[in-house]
């Protein structure tokens, strides 16, 4: 299955952050990617859908005081998640192969 652009970005963000991949950090990284701030609600919805599709798994860390005594939910890619990313990358590469006349070089 091919990922949508935002799914792709989210999975990559989770992958990059490794053991630090929880809501606040993911949201920050997404802001770096896109320049836009996501609401926590929207972020949660996306992560939850990816978990339901079993592209992500998650576990709870120990509670920390600056979080009002709440745990972090730390996300990780599943094998399916990794495969989906690789597949998406391949498809993208093949789409972009030999594209001329867009002015890609100048940009």
């Amino acid at each position, binding site marked *: 299955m091919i990922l949508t652009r935002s799914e792709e970005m989210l999975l990559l963000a989770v992958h990059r952050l490794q053991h630090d991949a*929880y*809501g*606040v950090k993911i*949201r920050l990284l997404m802001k770096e990617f896109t320049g836009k701030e996501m*609401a*926590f*609600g*929207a972020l*949660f*919805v996306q992560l*939850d*859908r990816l978990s339901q599709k079993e592209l992500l798994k998650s576990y*709870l860390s120990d*509670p*920390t*005081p*600056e*979080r*009002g*005594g*709440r*745990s*972090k*939910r730390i996300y990780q890619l599943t094998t399916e998640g990794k495969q989906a990313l690789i597949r998406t990358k391949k498809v993208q590469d093949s789409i972009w192969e030999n594209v001329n006349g867009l002015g890609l070089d100048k940009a």
Partner: protein
Amino acid sequence: MKSKRNRPPLIFEWLVKMFFPDRGSYSTVGDMHEQYSYINSTDGLFAAKWWYTKEVFKSIIPLFTHSIYWGIEMFLNYIKLAWRNFTRQKTNSFINLTGLTLGIASSIIILLFTLDELSFDKFNSKYDRIGRIITEEFQNNGESRFYPLTSGMVGKTLVQEYPEVEKHVNIIDRDVFGRFVVQRGEFQHHEADYLMTEPAFFEIFDYEMLIGNKSKVLHEPNEVVLTSTSAQLFFGDEDPIGEVLQTNRPFGNVKVVGVMNDPPGNSHLQFSMLISMSSLLTDNSNFTRIVSNWDISSMRTYLLFNSESSLNRFDGKLKQFDEKHATDVFGVKESAHIQKMENIHFGSTNYEIDRNYGARSINAVYILGIIGLFIVLSACINYSNLSIARYFNRAKEIGVRKVVGANKQQVLAQIFSESVFISVLAVLVSVGVVYLVLPTFNNYLDKNLTGISDNSLLFFGLIFFITLFVGMISGSLPAFFLSKLKTVSLMRLKLMPGNSVSVIKKSLVVLQFVISTVMIFATITVYNQLNFIKNKDLGFDQGQMLVVDINSRESRNNFQSIKNEFLNNPAVSSVTVSSRVPGDWKDFREIQVANFGQHESENIQMNFICVDEDFLNTFNISMREGSYFKGNPGLDSTKVVVNREVLRSLNISEPIGKIIQVTRRGNVYPVEIIGVVDDFNFRSLHQKVGPMVIGYYNSPFDAIDYYSLKVNMAGISETIKQLKAVHEKFDKGTPFEYNFLDEKIAEFYQRDVKESTIINSASLISILIACLGLFGLASYTAQQKVKEIGIRKVLGARDTEIVVFFSKGFLMLVAIAMLIAIPLGYHFMDQWLEGFAYRIDIGFSQVLFSAVAAILISVITISYQAIKASNNNPVDSIRAE
């Protein structure tokens, strides 16, 4: 560390917990908390709270859509079923939709009204840094009076002495110079809504200029900036810039230097033109002396501060300022205060001489809000009650869903999507209804409410919120009961609602009727009180009285001749001149009065009018003892007639011949009491009759300002034409201006009349909603009891017995509601009546009347179903089993 300050707003945290599906672990709540703490440490607590609030609202929408994500298909199925049920159950749907529409439409209007009220003066970009000076005047009786006027010295001295005060602007309105006539060519206009001010006006406030440069106008004397309405009035479509308007008051001609937009309707300052104050400040003018006197309060002074916090702290510093600049009066008998602009609209109810457009007490907004909430709740109750009944008939459908694998959440989702579905429908219909009735409402309340304005985003947000709120509240009760039921019991052939369900349903009906009965009670009380005011004997004649203003020296000096010529008109039976009339719409002159020879500190403030010898018989005021003015200017000028309240406040037992002293502007005048009149209500009935001293027209305290004519109302328009001709003969400069006294007096109660209309319509709506609910429940009960009634009939019950049997239960509920509602209504309305000095007492008859009205209304509502049930042929109803 767990400190309170570091917590996000609790209610929103709760909302997040409600909506995020990973409720148990709260990791997302934690994420938001972490970000909140971060913002708190960088941008401060307020920014953090604001961010949190925004974030919650931004998050709710995706989370809500997510919660139905697991199957758009399923969701569409729910909507489909909701629609089928909606179209099948016509009565139910009609009741629900009508009730919710009425409730939502009223709350939308109330919401618009409230938003408008809360937006007052906020168009000013420096809103939170502006304050105005309030003077507190200490009176001899230990009480204080407050008014927003101060000396011309205060503003500029404050700017000089306190660095945090950046700018000041002084404003003078008609309270100082009165109205004047503005003339262009032949066209004359009485101008009452002008302000005289300084260039800083445009630097402090954000009024929009259409033509002309804000920073260049009002510097020179005799300049005027017109609002677009008055530019239209004087110049039509011509270009007014550079044109000259003539005035008959101190500054002569004024040149138009700019045109500005009309002040917005939510501005406490309303005006038609701005005249440069420098017009008055010529080197030696009397006014220059007045302005530089610390003891004369004639200016409305607004200050601009460098920050909100320095404005907040400033009131404390004014004490020092008072002491530093103390004179005999300033700082001793008066003290200065500062009022923040945000408090001007709601916080000025105690201020006198306050030209504060639209000012009202915040309580009015609260009461309206509560009424709106109750109406919506009542509509939600209808939905809950009817849909519980309906769901028990549909139990099998839910049972089947559960059997094929629906979990509890999905059952809840179905119930809520149905209730939200109908609430969306109702919101759509009510938005239509609101747009239909809004013009009438605006017209009536003198507002300009539209949904689409600066606030439209907030408004649509709130509409969305209402939709969800109504849907959730309505759905919560059926959801609560149905989700508790076991699948097996859902699948049973017929499901009877349990005991707890019917208790809750019944208490909701009681609640509805409590609300309606309180509203009926309020309606009756308000009606009675307004009637009482209308018919109360004020102590003088208000009917058939024509009051003509004296606006010029010619009219005042020739009053004897004008009076005689007025009297020559056959329709006029009597004429008098006076400085004020009973029931006057302008402020009465205030004088300081004490017994003769007493110290100034014994002075008591009293009202004063001066009159001629025909005043008493024209107004038909009755004399208590002594004599009245004889019409001899030489003798009468040192004599006064007083009302009984004067005797009470000065402790005089034998008034006739008694000498009292009047202090005005530092001079003491001894005057002799020659007569006592009955107390008459010279002000509105909101106020008690105060002490009133009546002097002769040539007394030094005031000058005549009105002709009052007792006229025959037949052919009144012809009479007015003739009177106008008389007036023009003597006074060519000013237009003939007249009022009917009874119409002016009615204006005192306009606000009460408007309040009563709002209460009436609110109570009508709440009664309607409650009746709809009762009707729905009755039809449901009729359905349930069809067999029981059939059997009763077979066994020989008569139709009347059936009707009684059927209605008994409902009437019981209404009776319980009555017991709760009447003390409540009594309490609220007693408080409302406190606002009147002359008020009715709430009597047994009112209690009885509202009880009978509520019961009658419910009997009529039920009777349709009751009679229908009793007319049923038992053969039809018992045949099938």
